[in-house]
């Protein structure tokens, strides 16, 4: 009796297991077909950096204070400041993501709401230079806004020079956008 019971008990457990797999067979699948479907990203996700675009002022929020560059432990950020005071801004902003560890310290350091980390997470590039991002890659809204940012800055400086206010004879002139790109 005992070996027979062992055999039948084993068979019964196999049937139980197969019932489980059959149930799974007909259950909806959990696969997310990644390139076509994406999971929602947490709002606090530390993805690709972007420089915030101020639609009202038609410029990037960044004034080139370099606080982010100073906060950065791995020396990722460098920038070119133009103008000063209320007309200050950047016409170039370079981040070498090959060194970046996405620690968020630059975002925390920024007093002007200028730099943020977005939800983009596809950084793969085919050459080392590809991970060095310029202002055209970083500006929110893309190269178009990077160009408009420089235009606004140049206009502000011109106005300041006319009024003879602190923006007079700036040491650094904003370069045309083509050069910055």
């Amino acid at each position, binding site marked *: 009796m005992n070996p027979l019971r062992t055999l039948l008990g084993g068979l019964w457990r*196999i049937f139980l*297991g197969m019932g*489980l797999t059959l149930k*799974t067979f*007909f259950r909806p699948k959990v*696969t997310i*077909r990644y390139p076509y479907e994406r999971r929602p990203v947490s709002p606090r996700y530390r993805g690709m950096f972007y420089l915030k675009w101020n639609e009202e002022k038609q410029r990037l929020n960044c004034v080139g204070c370099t606080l982010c560059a100073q906060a950065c432990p791995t020396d990722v950020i460098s920038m070119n400041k133009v103008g000063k005071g209320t007309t200050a801004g950047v016409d170039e902003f370079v981040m070498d993501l090959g060194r970046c560890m996405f620690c968020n310290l630059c975002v925390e350091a920024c007093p002007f709401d200028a730099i943020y980390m977005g939800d983009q997470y596809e950084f793969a590039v085919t050459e080392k230079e590809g991970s060095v991002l310029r202002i055209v890659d970083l500006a929110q809204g893309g190269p178009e806004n990077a160009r408009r940012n420089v235009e606004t800055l140049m206009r502000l400086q011109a106005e300041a020079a006319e009024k003879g206010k602190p923006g007079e004879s700036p040491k650094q002139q904003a370069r045309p956008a083509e050069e910055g790109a």
Partner: protein
Amino acid sequence: MIAQALENPWIRQLVNAAMLLAVINLGVLVLIYLERKVAGYIQSRLGPVHVGPRGWLQSVADAVKLVLKEDIIPAPADRFMFVLAPFFVFVPVLAVFLVLPFSSGWVAYDFSLAALYVIAAGTVAIMGIVMAGWGTNNKYSLLGGLRSAAQLISYEVPVVLAILAVVFFAQSMSLVEIAEAQRGFRWFIFQPPLLVAAFVYMIGQLAETNRTPFDLPEAESELVSGFHTEYSGIRFAMFFLAEFANTFFASALAVVLFFGGWDGLPGLTGALWLVLKSYVLVFVLMWIRWTLPRVRVDQLLGFAWKVLVPIGLIVVLWAAASVVYAGGVAR
């Protein structure tokens, strides 16, 4: 003109052989796709989805990839054995399809000892597997080959006993006559002794076709892929093809022996019924594969000799007794 050419017996045989080969190879492609889909679905995945609609061209892409791959022969390998082994595995599988009756009259060669021939021809493949394991000169392959020798020879016995019980009932060894004896839903599976025999047969065939839970010759997690680890390209494809063709044949043979062959509801051709039933059985085999874990070597051999062989012997006695005393003969 084509009709004239077909009158020539040689051309006719050639066409038959080509058709059989095409059916087997296409069937194998379908099986590979099915296996992946079943594996995926059972694991809550989708399986292949990219190549072709719902991924059903995936196996074609795979076949093309395998044919295009470099054919590597390892330097320390025994060249003669290495090159010959895939054929020893592949040809017997094709050879057994020779006697498989798809429908009445749809059989390449019907002769009175077909059941015996299936067993005998199928056994040759064991030699191919051992040759592959030895010829590769790789310790994992050798282990896989030796394991498979022990396993396949052990499980051959209960399978033969199960087929023997069927032969008692059909009073014939011809597969056509065995299937004919089950016409009109008098399938052998409904006979109590043969129900047990069907179980023994399916478990034995699981082992014969190297499928989980008896996939020790391949045992991906311990022997890489066992006897065919070092094979690549078209030679690997032959092992792969043989394995799936074997799986299909084991199911088709089970249909012929136990599930009435081409017997089914009117409305579909007999051959379609046979193929349909075979695919259901293939699905069951895959279902088992993706449910159960692999057994140990000692469990494997112990199960064959201590459980399946005694049950097989009892079934043979039972079948013989019911044929003689209870008039269990189907006709």
